[in-house]
């Protein structure tokens, strides 16, 4: 099955990328954009979804500073 893993900076963890992008937007005329957070998207094809959590915790995300969300796309 196809799986998407969204990885984001944890709530409360400094996200320098997101902050810098957020500050750059008004100069380009994009007003009213706040709370920009930049993470990663990982696409996977897996046969056994039971280990997905473990896989994310151990490798895909750094759970000290990142949260992850698993989205199963299709069976």
């Amino acid at each position, binding site marked *: 099955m196809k799986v998407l893993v969204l990885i984001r900076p944890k709530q409360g963890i400094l996200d*320098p*990328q997101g902050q*810098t*992008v957020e500050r*750059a937007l008004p*100069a*380009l005329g994009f007003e009213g954009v706040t709370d920009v957070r*930049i993470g990663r998207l990982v696409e996977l094809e897996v046969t056994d979804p039971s280990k997905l959590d473990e896989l994310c915790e151990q490798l895909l995300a750094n759970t000290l500073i990142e949260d992850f969300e698993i989205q199963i796309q299709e069976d």
Partner: protein
Amino acid sequence: MRIGVVRFPGSCDEVDALDACAMVADAELLWHGRTDLDGVDAVVVPGGFSYGDYLRPGAIARFSPVMKAVADFAAEGGPVLGICNGFQVLCEAGLLPGALLTNSGLRFLCKQVDIIVERPATPWTADCEAGERLSIPVKHMSGRWHADEATVAELEAEGRIVFRYAPGDNPNGSTADVAGVCSAAGNVVGLMPHPEHAVDALTGSADGLKLFSSILNGGDRVGTAG
């Protein structure tokens, strides 16, 4: 001759580039927020980590007010040199072809390399001979120049590849060993190696000085490829 060196928040090599320019001409820093170029005769977009390289290297800096002025200056044939992050900015801004991707080794790499001058006919290489080897350091995380096959073939045909890494010295996996390219008119040049860090034998090499001294002689050779 007066050369302007752009300074973005997060530029690191702007002072070294300024000092290198000052060895051959008058030189001044241009703050990224300004909308004109103070009447300079040539512009260097220097290395560093403008805006921390966040999102993509050069992605935010290209929208700085000063870059509009640099684009207008380039369109009028003014000589522009992008070094490392400056090369990335010029590619993001569409002033130079291709894009710079993460090194094939996935690591930041600081290393002295040899590059070969493929095209002396630019304002920044006029003092070099075709085929001349220069010892110049690279130091970057995202220096793997990439363009699709058609673009590479077009650039080869038009003689727009200005520098290549010497055989065996490609440090980042760049397509066709490309170390630097120029615009169609030849006045805008970008390269990943740092000529401003090769202007004094005391600190390793003086070969890079030729790029800066070229600006004094290069005007009449713009646009004549090969």
